[in-house]
């Protein structure tokens, strides 16, 4: 039986309006998306868990409370949640064998806030193990596939989350971004991805990867939807000491697009570093659209930008090696058998559990981080990386304060989606693909990836804007105007029509 209402271009805003106004039931909408998942996820592998009955029961609860809850900003909106974010009583695997069977006893703060706002969680999405990767190929559940070209990666680490939105499994996904993990897959799948300012959104209940870099954010079809989800999730949380009390309610109001007078910084030199010719062409076209509508382009220099990758790939693994020490087979998840050993002891159990439980990329990063933090190398690698990190941030501060730049524009990725398997034997080549995304995490600045058009082979390309601290509003305003101007915004992958 075909779904009673096609979910193809439903957005957070239109679904909420339809449910609150009584035009459609939350159950009907939820079922339509579950049908899409059932029809297409066998090929795309975006989901690690699909919550059929639970989601429908929740949707029914919303229908029964429709009058009472009608002002809730996500009333009846189906969402997916990346599988590194804790959902009480539901599997939360980090796409890792080591968390096989883990069901957290509590919700992440963002999940509580989304549910309080009326959302329906319909599933958990696939990702690189513990969010470490740029292709979703480092998942214990196998890679997700790009709906625009199933022999290609959707990107990562939040590949499943981006696929879920691009393939209309849900109008929005919640994911995490430590070095580009929201923006890069959003770019490669042709949807919107936002990494908020560090401190904007609570990470309580996010399985920690690199605590000075991790941030939770939305993947959506429209800029206005990204703003709405940020408005719901943002704000101080006593359970995350890095979360701050910055006003965020304004994001719940409709975004008003504005380009005129915005000063857009363009780091031209950054583009010299091996950018695909079609990505460069699309980037120039996006800039042309902005100037045509009144933005002012200003050349900026980011002299330390070329150090962002080596800084990131020392800082992030160092923090990861510490954060992942907790997975030892004692408190949750997988434990390796040592009973056959001559003298089974707890140390042997730890070591074997971690070797059998973690995948290769996670072990590679734990090793790299342990090395960078070890005696004799700590100053040369880790401390030096943290100092260069300060210089990277200073470059942005100079652009924003001394040059009066409002946002800095860059491609999101140097290439469109690559083929599955293309980089799996060469981790350094995979890391270099993060050249345009890691700086926003190192500096803590907010950044959004917008659909920047399609290549001649119909592969999506991302257009990235990086803003001042806590100035997501300018990203939304500029992004919304862009959305309503460019002709390619609603281009979508084949949806099995």
């Amino acid at each position: 039986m075909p779904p009673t209402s096609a979910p193809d271009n439903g957005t957070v805003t239109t679904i909420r309006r339809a449910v609150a106004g009584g035009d459609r039931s939350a159950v009907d909408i939820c079922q339509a998306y579950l049908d899409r998942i059932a029809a297409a996820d066998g090929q795309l592998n975006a989901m690690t868990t699909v919550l059929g009955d639970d989601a429908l029961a929740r949707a029914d609860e919303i229908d029964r409370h429709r009058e009472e809850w009608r002002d809730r900003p996500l009333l009846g909106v189906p969402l997916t949640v990346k599988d590194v974010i804790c959902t009480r009583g539901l599997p939360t695997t980090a796409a890792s064998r080591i968390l096989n069977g883990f069901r957290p006893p509590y919700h992440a703060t963002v999940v509580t806030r989304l549910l309080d706002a009326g959302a329906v969680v319909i599933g958990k999405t696939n990702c690189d193990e513990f969010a470490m990767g740029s292709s979703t190929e480092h998942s214990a559940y196998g890679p997700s596939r790009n709906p625009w070209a199933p022999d290609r990666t959707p990107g990562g680490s939040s590949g499943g989350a981006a696929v879920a939105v691009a393939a209309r499994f849900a109008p929005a996904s919640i994911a995490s971004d430590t070095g580009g993990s929201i923006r890069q897959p959003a770019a490669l799948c042709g949807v919107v991805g936002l990494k908020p300012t560090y401190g904007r959104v609570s990470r309580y209940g996010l399985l920690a990867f690199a605590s000075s870099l991790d941030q939770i954010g939305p993947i959506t079809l429209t800029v206005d939807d990204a703003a709405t989800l940020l408005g719901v999730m943002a704000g101080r949380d006593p359970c995350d000491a890095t979360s701050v009390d910055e006003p965020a309610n304004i994001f719940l109001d409709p975004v008003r697009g504005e380009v005129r007078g915005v000063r857009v910084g363009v780091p031209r030199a950054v583009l010299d570093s091996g950018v695909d010719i079609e990505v460069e062409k699309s980037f120039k076209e996006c800039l042309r659209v902005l100037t045509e509508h009144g933005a002012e382009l200003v050349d900026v220099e980011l002299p330390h930008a070329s150090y962002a990758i080596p800084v990131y790939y020392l800082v992030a693994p160092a923090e990861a090696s510490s954060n992942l020490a907790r997975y030892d087979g004692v408190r949750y998840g997988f434990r390796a058998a040592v009973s056959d050993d001559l003298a089974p002891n707890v140390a042997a159990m730890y070591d074997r559990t971690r070797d059998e439980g973690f995948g290769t990329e996670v072990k590679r990063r734990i090793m790299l981080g342990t090395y960078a933090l070890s005696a004799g190398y700590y100053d040369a690698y880790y401390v030096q990386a943290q100092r260069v990190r300060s210089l990277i941030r200073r470059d942005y501060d100079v652009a924003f304060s001394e040059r009066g730049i409002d946002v800095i524009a860059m491609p999101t990725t140097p290439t469109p989606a690559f083929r599955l398997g293309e980089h799996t034997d060469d981790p350094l080549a995979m890391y270099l693909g993060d050249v345009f995304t890691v700086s926003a995490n190192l500096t803590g600045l907010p950044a959004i990836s917008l659909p920047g058009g399609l290549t001649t082979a119909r592969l999506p390309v991302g257009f990235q804007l990086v803003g001042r601290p806590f100035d997501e509003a300018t990203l939304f305003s500029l992004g919304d105007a862009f959305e309503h101007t460019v002709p390619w915004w609603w281009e979508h992958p084949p949806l099995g029509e």
Partner: protein
Amino acid sequence: MSKRLTKVEVEQIAALAHLELTTDETELFTRQLGAILEYAERLQEVDTDDITSTWNPSDIQSPLRRDDVRASLPSEDALSNAPDATVRGPAFFRVPKVIG
């Protein structure tokens, strides 16, 4: 700093990281981590003499909360995901022998 990583060093790091690597993994990581560290060598060319480290990208000081006594996770819930635990009587995690 530009020396290549040795297999012995990789084994020492694995011990620090509590990873019982296979022989194949040790060889793979010796090669790959060496290449990554060699790439990271370029950070040494940056003059950072007067530069402080960025440990936390936030400009805002984290406010302290009051040190109030609050309810915590019931031990039954905390133990519910353990591979081996006892919940009857005194609740605890069970692990293989620690000493000896």
